[in-house]
């Protein structure tokens, strides 16, 4: 809470160009851990993760094209929801065609929740983006979610032949009103 943290974490591996993804949240420790889990994933392309407390990012930095924005909301903190809602205003509308997703943590400890799940479900529905639930404090769940995110990132960057970000988005959309929770 408070001091914004921005770090570039990257791991150069092989020939193909970088897939940068952006994690936006106020929960610094959780973001850091999730970013590290993501970078541990072995993939053929270079992964870059940028952490931010809120958007917009300062315009002076020279950064590569962003392929995926993940907004992390902690149900225990109304502040994290408020910051995400404010940040959403600064996202270019083209990102909402499959390059944005919401990641919710803290749903397991019900007694600590200040934000209702319906609120985040409505938010994800409003922005037509997938909503993922994960307890980021548990190592194994975090690793599994990191794998999912890397897979989505690869699709969004166009590195998976035959599927684009928009295709993936329509596959994830469930027939009823609330957006699908599963990837």
């Amino acid at each position: 809470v408070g001091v914004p943290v921005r770090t570039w974490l990257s791991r150069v591996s092989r020939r193909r160009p970088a897939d940068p993804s952006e994690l936006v949240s106020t929960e610094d420790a959780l973001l850091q851990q999730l970013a590290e889990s993501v970078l541990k994933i072995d993939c053929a392309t270079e992964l870059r993760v940028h952490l931010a407390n809120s958007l917009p990012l300062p315009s002076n930095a020279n950064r590569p094209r962003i392929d995926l924005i993940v907004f992390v909301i902690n149900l225990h903190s109304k502040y994290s929801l408020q910051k995400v809602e404010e940040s959403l205003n600064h996202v270019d509308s083209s990102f909402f065609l499959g390059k944005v997703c919401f990641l919710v943590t803290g749903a397991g400890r019900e007694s600590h929740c200040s934000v209702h799940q319906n609120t985040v479900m409505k938010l994800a529905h409003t922005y037509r983006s997938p909503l993922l639930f994960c307890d980021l404090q548990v190592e194994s769940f975090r690793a599994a979610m990191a794998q999912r995110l890397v897979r989505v990132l690869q699709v969004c960057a166009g590195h998976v032949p035959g599927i684009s970000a928009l295709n993936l988005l329509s596959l994830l959309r469930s027939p009823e009103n609330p957006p699908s929770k599963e990837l």
Partner: protein
Amino acid sequence: MDTYDSQGPTSRRRTSNLKDYFVSATPLQKRLKLARRQSSVFPSPSRRKIPQCSQLQEDIDPQKVAFLLHKQWTVYSLTPLYKFSYSNLKDYSRLLSAFIAAEKQKGLAVEVGEDFNIKVIFSTLLGVKGTQRDPEAFLVQIRSESQSSREHRQDKVLWTGWFCCVFGENLQETVSEDFTCLPLFLAHGAESNTSLIGGWFQKTFDCCFSPLAISAFNLSWMAAMWTACKMDHYMATTEFFWSVPCSPQSLDISYAIHPEDAKALWDSVHKTPGEVTQEEVDLFMNCLYSHFHRHFRIHLSATRLVRVSTSVASAHTDGKIKILCHKYLIGVLAYMTELAIFQIE
């Protein structure tokens, strides 16, 4: 493809049979339907009624329920009791007394000090319910009979527990006739007595107790609803307590407001008469958060609300409540019953 065609009409017929089956739903099916509908973790109606003095309140003798006020109760949710009967209260008293005496002999019960006789009393609490269809609330007390013969009645109450159901029709509909639905259980006294008596009830009536934790979300609803209640005079300041998780040990923040200021703030936010909406609760809390932030540069919305205290009642996230105002006793119990029912389901 032929198999598909032949299966088509039959499967349609089968689903219509299933639909008929569900129309005359047994209680179990009603419960399943209810469970399937609830996707969220805790209840979230977008609006609730502000507690008013209900007509049944008039029947309650304030003296009789005075002992319920100004005491801290630990709250549990309770599944429906099987084959519980109000006419057998005397038998239950005897059985539970014998059980506790036996446990005491085994050395498991709490030491009372001197060798008092333990007496357990079951009694009904008239009027503590929402509608006529709610089952009667009943009270269990452990009293110690003093050995002194000077005064006839020198019973000391060691432990009190009461069961009630306020506006719990939804639950009653989903269970069969043999069950009595009293989803809210409140206890005051030694924890060992609570677990002893809870164990006896679980064995005798095949029910299940679980502690009712109150989330920060529900605490902010309570704060708004209780601030909205009309009070003639305020007995206590309105206080909020937040817990900030940080290492090495957590920080506690308390924020006290004069109750009339809190009511004035609420009135400025409140629009629909008689009801509280989610937006109003959020706005009320956000006003408090932004005021605090302006002075202390701390984002309270990033911390966890653990306790709310108003002149009507106070509640702690660990499931402890204290009711201060007898006028709104039913209103407070109604909300707690709703939370208890949600936890059971």
